[in-house]
Each structure stands twice: as structure tokens, then as C-alpha cells.
């Protein structure tokens, strides 16, 4: 509906011609596209190396928060503080703080690259969010599963590894994918401290040609990646819902 209205009405707006020229210039698209795709490759690389790091770190934090031994209280407190601090500050601010701050300490090349520290900032914040997802998953596994495992003589670590985690992870695949969709977009924020990834390349092109079309192309490139991911997430949500919430009421 909304889409139809937009398609029909927008071209009738008085300044549509001007907008069309500066946002949807076909020649400009053709010209910028290869450069933007090249630059997008850097986004993909940042995404590819931060994602595994985020998952590992997040899992460790979630396990620390779920530890039960009274002696491990400091570890639990630390893990809780970490997730609170990471999630309590906008991602962009962490990228500025870490991405400018750490190289500013006077590290030698290549350890002073904003690209490196921007990625680290991204990994730090996202591991806070993902840790909470893992924790929710672990909490959702019923206590009786632990009782069954422990009663067979499995240690608490074995119980976590073979019984609790496999069930927990299965349940949180959809929210994890959700976070990945967000990460895929937030990678572009690293551009704000220097690296020439797609958003920054689009900005360069825009300035050079005094035309906004490169931004539109960049948006389309993002959509080409995030929409399939989002659809997949939705599909997995629905499947999980069907599995866990009983028979659906008709209408």
C-alpha cells in the first residue's frame, strides 16, 4: 500500500525532477557502482573477522554470568558490568573513543590503525549484546535438564557443554541473526574514523560529483545483503515459534 502510494505520488511532487537527477542519476550509478562494491568488500571483511570474535567473547561472558559457584562472584559481577557498560553507550561513541583513543596512545604501525581499533570497538559493543542473547538462551533451558545431567554424574562443565548449551544456542539462533543484521549495517560506522569502506566511498563520490546517487547505490548494496538475512531470521523465528508455542488458533 505505502509502496504503491510512494511510487504513484512521489513523481508528482513539484521538485521531483531535481531530486531524481541528484539521487537517481543512472550514469552516476554506473560510474560509482564498481568503486562502491570494491569499498563494500572492506565492510564484508570487517564483518567477517569481527563476527567470530564476537561470538567467542560473548559466549565466554555469558558463561561467566551464568556461573554458580559462590567463589566466582567477582567474575559474575565483572561480566555483568561489561555487558551494562557496552550496551549503555552508543556504538558510534565506542568507535570514536577506542578508534581515536587507542591509536592516540602512540602505538607503532600497524597497531595504530583506526581500522583495527574501530573493529575492536565494534566487537566489544556487540559482544555485550550477543552475550545477553546467549544468557537468555541458557536461562531458558529448564532446570530439570541440569538435574537430569548432574544426576547421571556429569560435571557442571559437561552439563553446560553437552546438555544446556546445545539447547540454548538452538533457541537463540533467530535473535543472534538479528544482531548480525545490525552488525552488518553498523560496520559502516567504522568509516567515521577513517577507513574507506562503502559509506565513506559514497561520501567521497558524492562530494566529487555533487550528486547523492552514490548514497542510494550504497543503500541498495546494503539491502542486497540485509534483506535475505532478515528474511532468513523471520523464517527461523516462525519455525521456532511453531515448535514452542503450541497449536495455532485459527483466525
Amino acid at each position, binding site marked *: 500500500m505505502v509502496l504503491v502510494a510512494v511510487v504513484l505520488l512521489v513523481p508528482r511532487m513539484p521538485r521531483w525532477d531535481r531530486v531524481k537527477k541528484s539521487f537517481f542519476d543512472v550514469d552516476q550509478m554506473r560510474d560509482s557502482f564498481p568503486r562502491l562494491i570494491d569499498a563494500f568488500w572492506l565492510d564484508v571483511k570487517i564483518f567477517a573477522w569481527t563476527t567470530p570474535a564476537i561470538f567467542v567473547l560473548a559466549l565466554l561472558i555469558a558463561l561467566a554470568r551464568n556461573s554458580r559457584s559462590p567463589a566466582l562472584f567477582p567474575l559474575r559481577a565483572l561480566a555483568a558490568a561489561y555487558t551494562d557498560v557496552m550496551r549503555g553507550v552508543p556504538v558510534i561513541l565506542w568507535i570514536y573513543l577506542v578508534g581515536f583513543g587507542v591509536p592516540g596512545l602512540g602505538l607503532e604501525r600497524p597497531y595504530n590503525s583506526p581500522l583495527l581499533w574501530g573493529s575492536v570497538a565494534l566487537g566489544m559493543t556487540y559482544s555485550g549484546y550477543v552475550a545477553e542473547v546467549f544468557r537468555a538462551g541458557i536461562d531458558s533451558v529448564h532446570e530439570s*535438564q541440569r538435574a537430569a545431567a548432574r*544426576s547421571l554424574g*556429569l560435571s557442571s562443565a559437561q552439563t553446560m557443554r553437552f*546438555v544446556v548449551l546445545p539447547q540454548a544456542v538452538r533457541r537463540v539462533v533467530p535473535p543472534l541473526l538479528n544482531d548480525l543484521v545490525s552488525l552488518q549495517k553498523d560496520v559502516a560506522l567504522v568509516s567515521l574514523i577513517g577507513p574507506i569502506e562503502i559509506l565513506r566511498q559514497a561520501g567521497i563520490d558524492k562530494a566529487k560529483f555533487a550528486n547523492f546517487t552514490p548514497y542510494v547505490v550504497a543503500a541498495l548494496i546494503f539491502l542486497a545483503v540485509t534483506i535475505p538475512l532478515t528474511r532468513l531470521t523471520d523464517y527461523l523465528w516462525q519455525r521456532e515459534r511453531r515448535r514452542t508455542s503450541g497449536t495455532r488458533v485459527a483466525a
Partner: protein
Amino acid sequence: MTPKVSLRGVNKSFGANTVLHDLTLDVSAGEVVSFIGASGSGKTTLLRCVNLLEQIDDGAVLLDGDEISAVGRDPNPIRRRVGIVFQSFNLFPHMSVLRNITLALTKVLGLSSGDADTRAAELLARFGLAEKASVYPDQLSGGQQQRVAIIRALAMQPEVLLLDEITSALDPELVGEVLDVVRELKGSGITLLIATHEMAFAREISDRVCFLHAGSVAEVGAPSQIFSEPQDERTQQFLRRVRSH
């Protein structure tokens, strides 16, 4: 002779709620003892204290005369010797029937996966579930799930098996197949502690029946005595109530 399981003045509270109150009872090796009593009388908690899923506040739990409830003792070696089957089955839903049974065999007892599979297959065959080995728990009936849960506990070859209302979550027509498994265990040398609402079954299978009231042993004796000539007024009341249903 040293009792197999010995409860000596056991106290257990959850917050202000005292659930087991100075409970004392000895169970001999190979004996079958059933625990009956109203809901909330402490049957589940008692069984969970025996395999250390709950920590007692006071008193002692002994296995072959060895104080297993001592603070700081590693519960894992003891749990290998004392199995439990739960009211709600508690099979691992993400594992096949076979893997449910072999998990602890390989990870706890250190059996090779071949040996574990063989032991599991033998037990499944013995209890008529051979063709279910590769099936997942949610594809089984409640009765089948509970039989698998019993096999999972038995596969560890425990000296003591605790059965906590193992038929209470089942449709009536599925109760029989599960009780048949327990009947087969009697006399195999294993010591059975059974919490149950099935009075007829308790009477049939038990060497002794123990009536729990408010977390203590109100009366314990041979099944014929407990069910035909209960001495304690609370036992009489409880049985009257159960029979009027």
C-alpha cells in the same frame, strides 16, 4: 550389616519452610522401599537428598556407611552409584534415544562409544525399545519416554535407583508398561527407593512402605501392615482419603 542407604536425623529447609524434619531411616541392600504421603510431604526432596541434588542442612546421608552428605564432597562419583528417574522424564530433547543413554556412559564412565552403544542397545532390546534407538524423545509416547529415562539411569549400573513418581505424568493406559520395567528390576540386587501415588503398586512391589508426614517418617512397615492395619492415625487418615477417590 551396614545399611545400603541410611538417613540419620536429616533436616532440610527451603527458606523458612522446613521440608524434611529429623528424618531417620535405614534401607538394606537390595531392598525395595516405597514412600507414600500427601503432596508436599517431602518425598521428592528426600530422594533428591540421597543423590545430592539437594544439600541437607543437618543430619547425615550414608551410602554403605560412608557419609556422602559431608560438606565439600564431590557429588559426581556418588551419583554414578545412585541413579534417579524423574516424574517429568527429563530426557535430553536434542539427542536421540541412544545418545541420551550413552552420553554419561562415555563422558562419566569413560566407555568407548562402541561399548556404550552395545550396552544401550542391550537394555533397549530388553525393555522392548530396540527399534527406537535413533528416534528423538518428542516422537515417543510418555510411557516410552519414561522407559528410556529408566534405561538411561540403569545403564550406569547404579547400586541404588531412586524413582520419583515416575508414572504421575502418564496417561492411565501407559502406567502399566512403566511399572512392568520396575517389576523386572526387583530382585536384581539393586536397591529401590520409590516415591509413588500408586498404592496398589506400592503394596505389590515393596519390601517395606514408608508413610511420610510433614517431612518425617510417621510410620514404616511391611506393605500388608501399612495398608491393612496402619497404626498411626495420620496414616489411617491418608489412606482413607486416597481410597475415597
